[in-house]
């Protein structure tokens, strides 16, 4: 049996002492199948249980065949319908036939799907289905009007037709507070129905504020760690990383106990006479900021500390000795050198923050919930998987954009070799 991990005999000419770093040259040949055998099971497992479910969920954002499944004849009959005239009897008959034959579950899904675009559609469709099932001879447009007079409304037929396509832009547009107008143009939804742009902006703003706070807190901490003696560095690092190891829930519960109205902080402030009545510190934005900074600070401290370790102390001292002012030494000498670490830490913190769910849920108020909360809400409570998927797609897009930015950050050898 051959061994995948052993370099080819051809490599032995470049035999080097110590760990071989780069193994030049192709390593093909009969050994590849062992490599494949090692990677393949995990690869398949990841593709089936990780990549495929996410891809499928994201596809729900645009793929929505419920109406086509429940009402196939209607969809076919409406293909060449002129949207300005009342539907023909042929279309009406197709709908009646579909309603009679549709599977109950399919019809319910289709009704729900139609109801997203026009409220009241669900009740009307199910009522009409009941009516036409009851009377055998129901035929033509008039039969529909008898069942529910609103079938005279052409807007309803237009909704039916547009939802009849298996692919829809409806969910993605809704996730961005946009809608398709009857004339086909795309515009903003009226203010009272707009919801998600606020949520997206709130998510970004919250993450930005948390990142900036973390940055300002991490700076002195990293500086102190980087300039401490090695033994002390290890201890400080351990202390910074300690909360990292303690469950998110434990930390959230700690903040609830400390910050609630009759919590330790408020009690202490009251006793000291600084305040006369409890200050709301939790279940609002303040609480979310405190909780998230507490969780995310280590992600900021680590890369910045690594960057600072790689900067020789003499540089700043030299700047001072040549008469640079403190700000000038900071901005022109120190910051440019640690910039990769600062950028990496900030993006990492931001990216992780954007996807947070539990902390805002436990210590935030209604007005502090981020995108994740709404994805969960539309999956669990309101069972609108299309919208949940569209919001997930927005979240994924934000993440990918940020990671693209992350990939652009210049990385010097020094930042990682400093360890």
């Amino acid at each position, binding site marked *: 049996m*051959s061994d995948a991990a052993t370099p080819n005999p051809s490599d032995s000419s470049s035999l080097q002492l110590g760990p071989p770093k780069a193994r030049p040259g192709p*390593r093909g040949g009969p050994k590849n199948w062992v490599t494949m055998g090692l990677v393949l099971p995990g690869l398949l497992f990841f593709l089936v249980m990780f990549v495929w479910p996410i891809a499928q969920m994201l596809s729900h954002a645009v793929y929505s065949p419920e109406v086509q499944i429940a009402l196939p004849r209607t969809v076919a009959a409406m293909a060449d319908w002129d949207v300005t005239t009342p539907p023909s009897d042929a279309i009406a008959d197709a709908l009646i036939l579909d309603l009679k034959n549709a599977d109950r579950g399919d019809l319910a899904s289709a009704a729900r799907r139609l109801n997203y675009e026009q409220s009241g559609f669900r009740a009307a469709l199910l009522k009409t289905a009941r009516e036409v099932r009851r009377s055998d001879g129901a035929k033509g447009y008039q039969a529909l009007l008898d069942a529910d007079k609103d079938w005279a409304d052409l807007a309803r037929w237009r909704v039916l037709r547009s939802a009849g396509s298996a692919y829809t832009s409806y969910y993605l547009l809704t996730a961005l507070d946009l809608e398709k107008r009857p004339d086909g143009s795309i515009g903003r939804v009226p203010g009272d129905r707009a919801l998600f742009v606020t949520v997206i902006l709130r998510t970004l703003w919250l993450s930005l504020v948390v990142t900036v706070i973390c940055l300002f807190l991490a700076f002195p901490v990293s500086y102190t760690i980087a300039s401490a003696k090695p033994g002390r560095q290890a201890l*400080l690092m351990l202390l910074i990383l300690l909360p990292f190891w303690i469950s998110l829930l434990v930390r959230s519960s700690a903040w609830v106990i*400390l910050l609630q109205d009759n919590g330790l902080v408020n009690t202490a402030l009251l006793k000291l006479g600084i305040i006369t009545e409890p200050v709301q510190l939790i279940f609002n934005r303040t609480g979310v900021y405190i909780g998230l900074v*507490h969780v995310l600070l280590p992600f900021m401290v680590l890369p910045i500390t690594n960057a600072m370790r790689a900067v020789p102390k003499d540089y700043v001292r030299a700047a001072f000795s040549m008469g640079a002012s403190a700000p000038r030494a900071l901005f022109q000498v120190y910051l440019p050198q640690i910039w990769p670490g600062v950028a990496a830490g900030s993006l990492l913190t931001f990216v992780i923050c954007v996807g947070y*769910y539990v902390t805002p849920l436990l210590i935030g108020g209604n007005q502090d919930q981020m995108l994740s909360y709404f*994805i*969960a809400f539309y999956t669990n409570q309101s069972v609108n998987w299309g919208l949940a998927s569209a919001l997930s797609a927005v979240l994924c897009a934000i993440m990918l954009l940020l990671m693209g930015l992350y990939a652009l950050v210049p990385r010097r050898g020094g930042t990682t070799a400093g360890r």
Partner: protein
Amino acid sequence: MKYKQVNPMQKWQRLSGLLTLLVLIFLILPIVIIMPLSLSSGSFLSYPMPGFSMRWYEELLTNYKWTKALQNSAIIGISSAVLAMVIGLMAAIGINAMKKGAARAVVMGLFIAPLMTPLIIMAVSLFLFYSKLGLSGKMLGIIIAHAILGTPFVVVSVFAGLQKFDMTLMRAAKSLGASSWYAYRNVMFPILKPAVVSGLLFAFVTSFDEIIIVLFLAGPDHITLPIRLFEGIRDELTPVVISAAMVMVLISVGSMGLIEWVRRRSEAAKEA
């Protein structure tokens, strides 16, 4: 004049030292300050405590809903960590043997991707996927999801270990007549063991702490410790929540200590 020029840096250093102290207090004090409350004899989470007692730990270890949660967390944590270890170890050795290039980068990226994926996206996508697969409400589904979550830790840790591993050892073993499997088992694995163990523990702690995926995928019988804690925080904030939290802290910090111990031992062995 020269004196004055050195002064600014000292000032900054002192200031940053002070700020560091404040940040450390912010990071650690909240956790430390709630710990004694688990020993309170009262039912409220406030100071001063009426007295000391072990009643909340007793409740934790005797009340079915807590013991069941603890048991579920242990089963899910251990199974998913072992699964992650097997997948991750194989993948890391395989990736290390792949030739450098796009394929290798993509495979590596895929195995690390769960670290960067928002948990809510994994949770919702698996929720939809499992409902079609008939895996929803089953413990196996949670174990699979947590194994995916834990695999990156094993891959990263073992891969780093392999970078330091001297491949000439394998060749030496072969030249002395060892079979491929013998060389893996008796040469490579012992040296990789610390990396594997630390990856395994990371995977375990990740699963043990994870709540979002469990929230979405668990049936009523699979309540884990974090979920119980979550409900406790929202509904009945009594000291039993803190004693449960203490158990989680103990297990997490214990694992961290173990990782550190394994790391130190392997470093000591290398120097010897």
